[in-house]
């Protein structure tokens, strides 16, 4: 009458020991990036291709965004494919390699020396990505369950590898000049494969599972997800073709249109999930995650303006480009991480601390393991800091830059505070 699932109740939970180092590293890197943002505020608003901007961007993209996503993926992919993670050893290797490579690469950007530390750092990061890709790929192959979400994660990881390979080529090109143009000319290719191929594809793949799940919504539409997957990948491939063949700028409207359609479909998907939720009260973490979905539209709007201005004036609007990068890394990527950290990490800690007590004693709920008040202040400082920074850059109001970056530093501090509170949680029986 009720057919049991394949392995019945066998474990698909990845050990917290694999996942937590990624979360801790990312939290510290977020704090470091915002600290440097405070220290180098004036420098980073001068041009996007300068040492501190490159360093802070990579701290955010690799140290913050990528590390937390790698950690969370080791936990989530086995759940999505109803299987086990292929190898904890590869996951540890991935962490150690990336955790070593990222500071070396960032040091290279800070000192603007693309010599051995940056080169070696880039190579370590690529090896870390290959370990992750192998681990996820073999886990998916070994599983009998087909999951569109897992395919999103795997494809995004392939784009990440390609992004990192191009990044390493650009570093070597600084020293040996073997590419036809200067490295700065290839920056849009490297950046957009990373942003759309890695972050966008992955966040949509995982978000389309987590957002309805945490809203306790029964909404699911796999065919829309396949459409989104196809649109974004088609957009990326079209972008590469146009970029490498130096086609006219007007052609960039094709990938923008394809990717925008994918993002809008994802926004509709989340909206349907929200409308069909069973629990009417939406918690603060989910509100932040849903805000991140709305914020995904901002970079697209900025990009359209950048291209329009390029077509009209034939010159780059530096402030708009800086704001564009900011709304990506300090905007939707940070917003979704702020929200989802406090949906996923409490479960990991709860499982670590209370799993063996479940059913024997009354235990706190995962949401009780961190401070809701600190989360609320973190959210407010983030939204205020983000909005002020964007206004300061776009409207050229330098005196509000410092308050903006201080608010972001407060956000990072409060985030770390709550992460630490979770990590240090001791069992409490009610």
């Amino acid at each position, binding site marked *: *009458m*009720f*057919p*049991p*699932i394949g392995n*019945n*109740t066998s*474990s*698909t*939970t990845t050990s917290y020991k694999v996942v937590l180092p990624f979360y801790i590293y990312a939290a510290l890197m977020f704090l470091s990036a915002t600290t440097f943002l405070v220290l180098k505020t004036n420098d980073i608003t001068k041009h996007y291709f300068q040492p501190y901007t490159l360093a802070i961007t990579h701290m955010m993209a690799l140290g913050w965004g990528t590390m937390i996503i790698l950690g969370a993926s080791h*936990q989530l992919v086995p*759940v*999505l494919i*109803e299987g086990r993670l292929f190898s904890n050893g590869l996951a540890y290797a991935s962490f150690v390699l990336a955790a070593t490579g990222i500071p070396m690469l960032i040091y290279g950007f800070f000192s603007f020396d693309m010599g051995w530390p940056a080169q070696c750092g880039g190579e370590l990061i690529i090896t870390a990505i290959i370990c992750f890709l192998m681990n996820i790929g073999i886990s998916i192959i070994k599983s009998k369950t087909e999951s569109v979400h897992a395919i999103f994660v795997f494809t995004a990881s392939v784009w990440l590898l390609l992004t990192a390979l191009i990044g390493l080529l650009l570093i070597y090109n600084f020293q040996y000049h073997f590419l036809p143009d200067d490295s700065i000319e290839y920056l849009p290719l490297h950046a957009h494969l990373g942003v759309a191929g890695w972050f966008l594809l992955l966040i949509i793949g995982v978000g389309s*599972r987590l957002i309805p*799940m*945490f809203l*306790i919504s*029964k909404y699911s539409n796999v065919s829309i997800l396949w459409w989104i997957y196809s649109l974004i990948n088609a957009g990326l491939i079209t972008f590469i073709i146009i970029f490498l063949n130096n086609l006219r700028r007007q052609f960039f409207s094709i990938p923008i249109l394809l990717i925008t359609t994918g993002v809008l479909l994802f926004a509709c998907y989340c909206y349907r999930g929200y409308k069909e939720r*069973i*629990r*009417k*009260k939406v918690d603060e973490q989910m509100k932040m995650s849903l805000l991140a979905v709305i914020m995904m539209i901002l970079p697209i709007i900025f990009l359209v303006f950048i291209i329009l201005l390029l077509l009209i004036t034939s010159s780059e609007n530096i402030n708009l480009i800086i704001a564009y990068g900011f709304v990506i890394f300090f905007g939707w990527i940070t917003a979704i991480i702020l929200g989802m950290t406090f949906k*996923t990490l409490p*479960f990991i800690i*709860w*499982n670590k601390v*209370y*799993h063996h007590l*479940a*059913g*024997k004693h*009354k*235990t706190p*709920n*995962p949401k009780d393991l961190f401070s809701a008040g600190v989360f609320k202040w973190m959210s407010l400082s983030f939204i205020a800091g983000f909005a002020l920074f964007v206004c300061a850059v776009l409207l050229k109001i330098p005196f509000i830059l410092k308050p903006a970056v201080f608010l972001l530093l407060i956000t990072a501090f409060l985030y770390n505070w709550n992460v630490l509170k979770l990590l240090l949680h001791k069992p409490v029986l009610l």
Partner: protein
Amino acid sequence: MNVTTNDNLRSTIALAALHNVMDPEIGLNIVDLGLIYQLDFDDPGMKLYCTMTLTTQFCPMGESITDAAKEVLHDAFPEYETIINLTFDPPWRHDRISEEGKNFLNL
């Protein structure tokens, strides 16, 4: 709440025990949430079969919930071997939530 059973009396005791198992995300017990489908007592084999589901197939707390269900059933019926059959066919639907559960969730 709609639980199929071959023994109403002992099933009441089992459900009372399962009331202590919470879905930590929702904060509601798994009985009122409607996660329990079937409870069967196999007296010759001394086995207690509990067929249950989760609110989602990808529930991160799934293992904790099923382990806790097994634990409380074992405590209630120590002489029986408890076997948890996890199923997603049929999938959980919110109309399985009891009236108490609906009140708790403000549905």
